[in-house]
């Protein structure tokens, strides 16, 4: 599914860079209050943060079937944006699309730093998404009390059961492909805290600046914020992930700073 996206991008790259960002660009996501799951919420928040950092206007549309409408992707398939005739799903394709418009943040980085940054983005996306999927679908209590009821809420009864089943199967397959299927919760915590260590180390390389790469935000700031903030603010029966992240004070204050600057939800307590 990404092929066509990619080819779309390649074939229309010249045309795209000339065209301005469409005013009616819309971001599609599931219903935030009732339906959205932790991994989806994190990726949606990351994309929203990125677009806000780029200062691009966009509307948000909540659809019950957003996941099914999406052209597909490597992980949650969400969110997807529609800009003119183009539809792109997930963080990386959306970032690639925005970069063709010359409005992207992160262009201040030199090529080496940029490739390093891209690998950080990929690490953050993989580790946190997998950890969120793991806790949502492999932890029996979280699955029964949160994931299944939320996922099934938009469907009438027998259908909700079948949708839960297929959603869980997909999630387990994803975990298997990323080689997370045979881990136990301690391994997951270890992976997450290693990733947090890496991020905190990166953040402390420039201790006086608010962002990962100095004074200006880049993709890494958006995706790290999306995942960390979602993990910290989502209440689950098992808060192991949040407790792990909370140990990294710099990351927590980084989240608070980004939230204050771009979203003002202020739901992250001290």
């Amino acid at each position, binding site marked *: *599914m990404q092929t066509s996206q990619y080819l779309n991008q390649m074939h229309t790259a010249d045309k795209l860079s000339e065209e301005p960002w469409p005013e009616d660009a819309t971001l599609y996501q599931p219903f935030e209050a009732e339906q959205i799951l932790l991994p989806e919420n994190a990726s949606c928040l990351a994309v929203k943060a990125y677009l806000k950092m780029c200062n691009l206007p966009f509307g948000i549309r909540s659809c019950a079937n957003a996941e099914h*409408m999406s052209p597909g992707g490597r992980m949650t398939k969400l969110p997807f944006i529609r800009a003119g005739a183009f539809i792109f799903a997930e963080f990386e394709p959306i970032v690639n699309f925005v970069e063709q418009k010359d409005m992207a943040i992160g262009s201040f980085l030199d090529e080496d730093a940029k490739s390093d940054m891209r690998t950080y983005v990929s690490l953050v996306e993989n580790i946190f998404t997998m950890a969120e999927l793991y806790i949502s679908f492999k932890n029996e209590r979280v699955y029964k009390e949160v994931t299944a009821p939320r996922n099934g809420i938009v469907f009438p009864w027998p*259908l909700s059961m079948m949708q839960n089943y297929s959603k869980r199967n997909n999630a387990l397959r994803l975990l298997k492909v990323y080689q997370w299927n045979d881990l136990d919760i301690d391994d997951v915590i270890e992976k997450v805290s290693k990733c947090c260590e890496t991020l905190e180390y990166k953040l402390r390389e420039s201790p006086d600046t608010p962002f990962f790469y100095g004074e200006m935000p880049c993709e890494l700031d958006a995706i790290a914020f999306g995942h960390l903030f979602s993990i910290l603010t989502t209440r689950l029966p098992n808060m192991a992930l949040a407790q792990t992240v909370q140990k990294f004070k710099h990351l927590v204050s980084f989240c608070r700073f980004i939230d204050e600057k771009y979203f003002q939800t202020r739901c992250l307590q001290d």
Partner: protein
Amino acid sequence: MSQTPPKDPNSKYDLSKIGARVDRVNVNGLLRTHNDYVLRAADGLFKADNFQDMMIEAMAAKSYLHELGIFKDVSVHIDISRGADATPQGYEITLKGNEYSRIMGSAGTEIGQNEGSLRTELTIPNVLGRGESISLQGSYSSTRANDLQLKFWKPFFHTRFRENRPEMSFSVFRQTDRYDISSFQTTNLGYLVDLSAHTMLGVDLTHSLQYENSIRDVSLLNKSVPIAIRDHCGPKLASLLRYSVIFDNRDSNVFPTKGVLLKSVNEYCGLGGNISYTSSTAHGEVNVPLFAGLVAQFCGRVGVMKETKKTTILPINNLFYCGGPLTLRGFKYGGAGPVVDGTPIGAQTFWCTGAHLWTPLPFAGVFKGLASHFRMHFFYNMGNSNSFNTDNMRSAYGMGIAVKLAERARIELNYCVPVRRQNTDKVLNGFQFGIGYEFV
């Protein structure tokens, strides 16, 4: 069902004057069938009081047994009744049936709009001894759209509503429909309960009342699909009642020479589930015989789909597609309807009519047997979507040749010339191939 038989003035004996009384009726060959299921076969026989009636009733009983769907073949033996309690002029009638084997299977190929498919069927007739049957039907096609249907049905011909021919069926199905023109497909998974019966209050009508409960999953067939179609993606639960009534007095299903067919299907969806709409379609066909084997045929079809109070979005897979060999010849399938971002999408209402002049093939007399399967026709089609006036309607005319397929379906090869069209329509000027049951 009884008719007065034509009397042959040349016959030596008037059979109706020979008295006869049926003393006994035997039905043989009942291995798995319960006795009470065939009891009514004898009803008419005991009423017969002369030999001719008895013969006719015996034949009626034979065809009745056939209809019960338990026998492969039935033979009738008539004998003088013997024994202690035999009456003079008494006869004993033995109906000897040969029951179906426990399992019957069949396989075959089908050709649809643009794909071939392999169909297999496995039937277990007369499971419980009163005509109840189970069948499993599967089809596998080249485009990986697999259909499966498990059906249980039970006729109630043996009850006192025999004349109404009531029948009940329950089926579980999985079915995939591809809407290539709008680049989406639906996968339906669900069950269906069907009650059907005839009524003969003045006119003979076939009624069918169905309840369907199914999951309809809309998915996309390619990547560049407009958001208006994308909006419909994902599974939904439909719960609907469907009522259809058919009046048919034509003399043949495929190439009728006289008679009228009227058919109406009404759906109400929204008894639970999260799809709601009402939809009605009506189809009519009038055949008028002319001279020299020519037949004039007028067809018309109308469809209307409406929101109900609960509707949030009308399901895309229930919209009507106008155009194609079965409706508006000279247009591609679904090519004469509204368009969203260049992709045709179904319409909420549509109508189309057709006028045909059917002729036998020239030199039909030479190949009599074969020629009865072929006809030639000239046609003129008109139709439109989302509008009932004739200002911007579509129309096409042409001629072609049609073949009868197994007394049910028709294959047409037509040369079509579209006359009136819209800019967004997809026309097909030239030869068009069509296969189906119900044409306009």
